[in-house]
């Protein structure tokens, strides 16, 4: 047995154990992309490097065998900086987006491509579930949202953007028409009470997401009916009130209590309100009736300078879109929850994303959906509103330019963890390629990090052709040998290599 320390913690391991394995035994997590049990260390990603006392350079922990008395340093700013650099270098040669440009453009951060994938299979309730993770009033925004997502949509460079707003409205209205519309799960009741001031989009959104966490919510609103500007500002021609009522009804179903005709500030002073609740959310819109409600807002967390009070929506200057107010409400809900649990209030962390930016016309041809053009009904020809058949049909034209493994990609997970900046190093990079000729999988070489796992696995499992490294240096690519296709190259190892691929380079078809 050998004794070493990692971050000053002693551990005893048998001879031949690597530093990475020793760390595992201690419960210390060392990041790695290219290491896989049962194959020899490949040492390509270099993410697992650690400092070893007495060594000039950092060493890859996956391949370095522990030696008696070794002093290993893993939790250290210089190690973190080196890992961040490795991640940033990999990202600088990465052609592929984590999130589609539509999702990035959506103020609420809705996973639009996923919604569309459900819709394209005719599963509108699946689609609604995806929408309502971020948007409390999908049908409402389906009527009035100016849809920044559609302006960002890549399909727009091919012919016309996908009709995201109408697809969403269709899904949401189909859901509302159900006898039992979608109701999210509600966590067991917590002994926490939150007052929401204002029943406009921000307040409704905050209440909707807080209620799901088992927080008791009371909405105070000066008007006769809830809805705020949506009811008292937006013309009825633009937004049918029945739709608004139906969606507010879904919020009430979560146990949210509404107190209409109460003006906080004049009827009940804020201080008094606060004393009866654990936290307050202020979503009173632009025109606050009382000057006493003046505060500054941290736009990251929605905290105000009044202890225990959060705010969002139109009370922030320059916020005009309903969907932005909805986003604020959800963001505030996250912060309020952290506050209620006595945690540090950080707000929701914006998910890591890399962007490949503008594509060349040639690169668009990589997308199978982009080739289909003739048979498409142009969204610009849609009269307002589409039925389910139209929505399903239109959904088939989405390029799905988001990453198929966005939630599983370890490159993304570590990039988020180490705060990697994908644009730190600029320069030449892989071309975007989307190879879908194989019946089960999609191969996107632009997302490959040359870790070598698939090359080793196909060799080990004696795949007839398999995959190999081609070329040398910066231009090394992984592909099937002898100029054969992916369909010819891969058969029995498909499941294994897709699951082992640390990024979205190899992914299964479908959702």
């Amino acid at each position, binding site marked *: 047995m050998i004794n070493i320390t990692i971050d000053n913690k002693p551990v005893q391991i048998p001879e031949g154990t690597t530093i990475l394995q020793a760390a595992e035994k201690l419960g210390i997590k060392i990041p790695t992309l290219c290491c896989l049990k049962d194959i020899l260390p490949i040492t390509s990603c270099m993410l697992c490097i650690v400092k070893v006392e007495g060594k000039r350079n950092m060493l890859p922990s996956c391949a370095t065998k522990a030696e008696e008395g070794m002093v290993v340093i893993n939790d250290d700013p210089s190690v973190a900086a080196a890992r961040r650099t490795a991640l940033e270098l990999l990202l600088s040669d990465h052609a592929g987006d984590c999130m589609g440009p539509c999702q990035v453009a959506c103020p609420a951060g809705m996973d639009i491509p996923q919604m569309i994938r459900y819709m394209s299979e005719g599963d509108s309730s699946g689609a609604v579930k995806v929408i309502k993770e971020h948007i409390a009033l999908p049908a409402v925004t389906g009527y009035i949202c100016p849809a920044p997502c559609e302006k960002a949509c890549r399909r727009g460079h091919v012919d016309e953007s996908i009709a995201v707003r109408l697809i969403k409205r269709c899904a949401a209205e189909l859901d509302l028409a159900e006898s039992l519309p979608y109701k999210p799960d509600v966590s067991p009741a917590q002994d926490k009470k939150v007052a929401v001031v204002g029943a406009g989009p921000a307040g409704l959104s905050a209440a909707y997401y807080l209620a799901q966490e088992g927080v008791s919510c009371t909405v105070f609103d000066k008007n006769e009916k809830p809805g705020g500007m949506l009811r008292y500002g937006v013309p009825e021609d633009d937004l049918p009130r029945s739709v608004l009522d139906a969606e507010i009804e879904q919020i009430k179903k979560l146990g949210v209590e509404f107190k209409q005709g109460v003006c906080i500030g004049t009827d009940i002073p804020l201080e008094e309100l606060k004393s009866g609740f654990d936290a307050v959310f202020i979503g009173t819109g632009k025109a606050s009736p009382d000057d006493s409600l003046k505060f500054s807002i941290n736009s990251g967390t929605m905290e105000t300078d009044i202890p225990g009070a959060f705010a969002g929506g139109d009370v922030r200057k320059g916020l005009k879109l309903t969907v932005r107010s909805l986003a604020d409400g959800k963001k505030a809900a996250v912060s309020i929850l952290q506050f209620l649990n006595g945690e540090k209030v950080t707000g929701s962390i914006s998910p890591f994303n890399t962007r490949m930016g503008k594509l060349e016309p040639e690169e668009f041809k990589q997308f199978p959906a982009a080739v289909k053009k003739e048979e498409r009904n142009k969204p610009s020809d849609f009269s307002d509103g589409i039925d389910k058949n139209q929505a399903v049909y239109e959904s088939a034209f989405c390029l799905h330019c988001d990453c198929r493994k966005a939630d599983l990609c370890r490159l993304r997970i570590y990039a988020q963890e180490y705060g990697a900046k994908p644009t730190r190093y600029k320069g030449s990079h892989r071309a975007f390629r989307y190879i879908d000729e194989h019946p089960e999988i999609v191969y996107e070489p632009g997302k490959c990090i040359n870790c070598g796992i698939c090359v080793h696995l196909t060799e080990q499992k004696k795949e*007839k052709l398999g995959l190999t490294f081609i070329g040398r240096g910066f231009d090394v690519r992984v592909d099937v040998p002898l100029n054969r296709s992916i369909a010819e190259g891969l058969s029995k190892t498909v499941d294994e290599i897709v699951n082992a691929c640390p990024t979205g380079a190899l992914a299964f078809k479908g959702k």
Partner: protein
Amino acid sequence: MKNPDLTKIDEIIAQAGTTPDKILPILQAMQKEYGYLPQPALEMVCRKTEITPAAITGFSSFYDQFRFEPAGEHTIRVCLGTACHVKGAKTVFDAFKRHLGIPEKQDTDSKRQFTVEPVACLGCCTLAPVVQIDDVIYGHVTADSVGNTIKEYLAWYDAKKKNEGKAAKQLKASDITSGEVRVGLGSCCQARGSGYLKDAVEKVIHETGIPAVIKHVGCVGMCYQTPLMEILLSNGKHYLYAGVKPEDARDILLKHFKPKGFAGKILPMISKGLDTILTGGEPLSIPRHAIDKREKHVADFLGRQKNIATEHCGSISPVDIDEYIEYGGFKGLEKAVNNLTEDEIISEIETSGLKGRGGAGFPTFFKWKALRSQPEKERFIVLNGDEGDPGAFMDRMLMESYSFRVIEGIAIAARAIGAGRGYLYIRAEYPLAIERMTEAIKMCRARGFLGENICGSSMSLDLKIVAGAGAFVCGEETALLASIMGQRGMPRLRPPYPAQEGLWGKPTLINNVETYSLVPWIIRNGGAAFAEMGTEKSKGTKVFALAGKIARGGLIEVPMGVTLRQVVEEIGGGIANGLRFKAIQIGGPSGGCVPAHLSDIPVDYESLTGAGAIMGSGGLVVLDETDCMVDIARYFLEFTQNQSCGKCTFCRVGTRRMLEILDRLCNGQGKKSDIDQLEELAFQIKQGSLCALGGTAPNPVLSTLEHFREEYEAHVNGKCPAGKCKALIEYKVTDACIGCTICAQHCPVGAIKVMPYKKHEIDIEKCIRCGSCKGVCPEDAVVVE
């Protein structure tokens, strides 16, 4: 394109074998047969051998030697080594492509007559810029001589084709009468036409019946004087001629030897008369070429040198084993085999203080000892002859000129560590070295210095040659071993060291060419004698390849501890053309630039590392005031990032990002923050790389940043102080122009209009900044701004 003849594949496989490790010889044989690797042939190999498709594609695409498209009838390789680079190799490369009308991103002309490709280094640095057309090397090629070079080659090629089969009668040593003619046949000499010279000498001897024999000698090291020819008369007198042209051969020979018989007398007279008439002037004056070893520059060049690895330099034949034995060859091996135990050999090496000459300077005895202690008894010995540093050609010369000594060193080491089999891995760009080593192995086997019962003992040693396939990274020992085993040359983490787990998992000793070359001397004379030379920590001698902007370039062997300034100024004769000595690049892509003001440091491992350079394998490229240090750094990064195996993130992506920053700086698009990012990346790549290629790749940048930071800053401000970076300079004609039109005639792109007796002008839009005009102007009226 006609279909390749696949029946040849069977022959190739029958010759090489069918196991996976035979991939390298099989592919090399295919490349030789077809000129490229045809897809159907590759598929056939996979069907008929144990080599998998993944292996064949992965392997063949890794090495530069292999092509997947047919090449032209002739291949022009333009050397882009360091010395060639500083003398404008890129311009020459562009000029060849322009001359042949080859479009960008293609390498072959439309008639498929010529393929033009870059080569990392041909190891003929003193003749920079160097170009190789098929097997013929041309030195000092310039942008405006490319047309003539091609013409000359084609003329030679046609003549050779015509004369095939009419080999001249070779005189044997037994015919010897009154003397010998020595012609240097190192690659440098050959590049300067010593091959032609040898042919000419043979022809003269044949025609005149002069009773002399031709003797091939190895490299004398005085590459700046090539081709060298030495006449030795039976009375003991000898005469050395430098820079000899083939047409001079007859005059020189007839000056020293009497032709045999009447015809012999008459023939040369007639043809000599004809020559004189045809050239319309005086015959070439011979004394111009004669040099005396007592002459000052020769004395300076040779004076400080101490020949150990290059013992008997200039007088010993590279291909005559008897002569090697006469000069004390194989005495060391005999002693090691018959009089010393394994431990005694290793102890002599320890006493000598010998450190590995490949670059890292690891104590040699330590490696040998580590092997001795391995429980596994099957052991391998390997020669690392993959000298890839651009600007270095020591090992090439040692293998070409002292092949027996290299083998003797290997055999002694094999005896010490108990190895019975070994491989000599020699880079493909050194065909002459491969040829000489192959011959030498045969001769040694015939004489009982290799094979069974070496020197009458029970020791046996079987050596095989493996020709590399064009990958710098294979100089890294773990990559080299992978390459021998038929894998992509990707380094792996050490430990385990090759001494523990090398070829096929067996303990393997791997040393550099020069290291082995020093061993016979050490064993013969004792380790203590070797340790008497050099400095406290760096013992013995070191062979350097001296090139660049120096008056006398060549190969030198000096005791450790001489100063860089002594090397540059005394041995090298200072900077050519009276320019200012700026810096000396040491250690190639892993090394750094030592500025002139620090050149009083002694040459030893410790001092060089202290100055931000490394000893490396021994390439010294001298730079003058017209060399831009940012461009030099860019040059090396371009090299290393191209040669990275591509496995690890820091090296694969990081060196490319560094290169892109340097490109921006040289193109005048750099920002202040680029320098900071460059430095930060250099640091991260250094500490995060797995092997020495990545770990040392940032050194050229770090050392130039340390000593010449102001040049980087000048580039950010759009200025190249040395006047080198093309995007930042303009050529202008001054009032000193006399209107001679020479510049206009030499401009390869027509940017100067012919205006007799008027001041010429350069069209900046058309100008490609090749510098041809500046080079030819007799009035120095072309300036760089």
